[in-house]
């Protein structure tokens, strides 16, 4: 336990949207090559916390952040840091699959292109990313098909492929299965398992069964506070706080 390397962490993180205090003095750490689940009722700030790591709030006009976020020892909100580099190192998969209205190939190729991956390497990377995302067998013959014609589950796996193609260190997943059917959901959960060898994954989920199935660690949040964090099995079997107990037993949320 103690030799775990901390990949991502926050220090006294506070975040406001206008006058609304959404994250309250958050101190959290995320271990390398582990899957950490963020759970909690709607509005508890779990997605907001997730999106602050890759600086997705930068464009929200009334968002204000205090405190520090670190990628290893790198201060993510340092003035001299490159936001685009941060987002390349910390990839993100969104709640609703959002493929570009381009071909399957171009969806993955886009990130390679803007990040200046040599032309000759791209084809291999695209193929690899699709294989890593369990999508290759389904689409290998129609890479030029518009991505919007794929099914919802396939689209979400494409979005994961698009992200892993850039070899990020961390993948943030914001309720990636909330819009999917159970079979697609299982496929993605399988995928998450296989990805954790290479990546550190933080996943926001509403679904407590899912948190138990996919994650090593779980953080329970409530109204902008971290209530409890522990190894997943520990948190679900032996919660220390009454609030956690109530939430995981379905009393609210």
């Amino acid at each position, binding site marked *: 336990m103690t030799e775990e390397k901390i990949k991502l962490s926050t220090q006294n993180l506070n975040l406001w949207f206008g006058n609304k205090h959404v994250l309250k003095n958050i101190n959290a750490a995320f271990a390398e090559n582990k899957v950490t689940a963020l759970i909690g009722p709607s509005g508890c700030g779990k997605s907001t916390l997730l999106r602050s790591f890759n600086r997705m709030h930068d464009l929200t006009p009334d968002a204000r952040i205090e405190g520090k976020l670190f990628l290893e020892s790198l201060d993510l909100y340092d003035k001299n840091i490159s936001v685009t580099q941060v*987002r390349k190192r910390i990839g993100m998969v969104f709640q609703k699959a959002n493929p570009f209205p381009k071909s399957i190939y171009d969806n993955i190729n886009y990130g390679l292109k803007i990040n200046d991956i040599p032309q000759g390497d791209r084809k291999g990377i695209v193929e690899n990313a699709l294989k890593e995302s369990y999508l290759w067998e389904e689409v290998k013959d129609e890479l030029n098909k518009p991505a919007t014609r794929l099914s919802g589950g396939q689209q979400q796996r494409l*979005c994961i492929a698009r992200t892993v193609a*850039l070899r990020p260190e961390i993948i943030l997943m914001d309720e990636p299965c909330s819009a999917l059917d159970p079979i697609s959901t299982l496929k993605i959960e399988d995928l998450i398992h296989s990805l954790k060898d290479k990546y550190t994954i933080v996943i926001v989920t509403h679904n407590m069964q899912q948190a138990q199935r996919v994650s090593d660690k779980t953080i329970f949040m409530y109204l902008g506070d971290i209530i409890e964090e522990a190894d997943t099995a520990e948190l679900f079997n032996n919660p220390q706080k009454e609030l956690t107990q109530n939430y995981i037993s379905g009393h609210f949320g």
Partner: protein
Amino acid sequence: MISKKTGAFLGWFVLLLCTGTVCFFLGIILADLITKGWPALSWEFISSGPTEGMTTGGILPAIVGTVLTTVITAIFAVPFGVCCAIYLNEYAKDTSFSRLIRASIRNLSGVPSIIYGLFGLALFVQGLSLGTSVLSAGLTLGLLSLPYIITTTEEALRRVPASMREAALGLGATQFESIRDVVLPAALPGILTGVVLTLSRAAGETAPILFTGAAFYITGTSGALNQEFMALPYHLYMLSTQHQAIEQVRPLAYATALVLLIVIVLLNLTAFYIRYKHRNND
């Protein structure tokens, strides 16, 4: 006392009458221009210049002039307007600066076209010494078109879902790259529709080109940008009010009006086609 039922019928009838009158206006405009313009319309009319003091011949130079000014208008107003709309929709927060821009746009769209003509005269013809020319007139119409292009472009940008921007940014694209590669392509059909509709309006405008370069008659079909030019709407104005033999050239005026109408209708149909095709692709 009229009964409730009769009252309702009368009300419906009055509204129907109003609607019928509006349609009648449109009908009479189209019918008159088409029935009287059509006989004077010929290939020769649109492919040759005016002859014998404009009592015979065609309107080729006016068509060329209108196309040229409209092209200048587009070259000037489209990039300018699209960039401004991008600023407003993608970058601007709700500050006093962005509110001032929006207020300016609303005001500009209400400024009478003749005042644009005066401004074009003061700024382009005299101030920048461009003279009365295609360039001055095109730029003046460009200013007039600006608020419409900005408004329609911003609307098109607003319809692009935020998730598209996030997808690009999440892959490490800069904001400019996400706009260039994702937002603009997705908004393109909407932007094009607005641009074509705006240009069709500009092509039919007369007041802004009165003092900025439109001429009654030029020899040949000169395409020089620093020369005065003939334009369809101005030509129609001159033929119908200023010509020494007004009754004699009336058929030519009708044919000119019909050509102008056809140009405008074609541009409008293009815009509707783009809109329609895009809808089917969704």
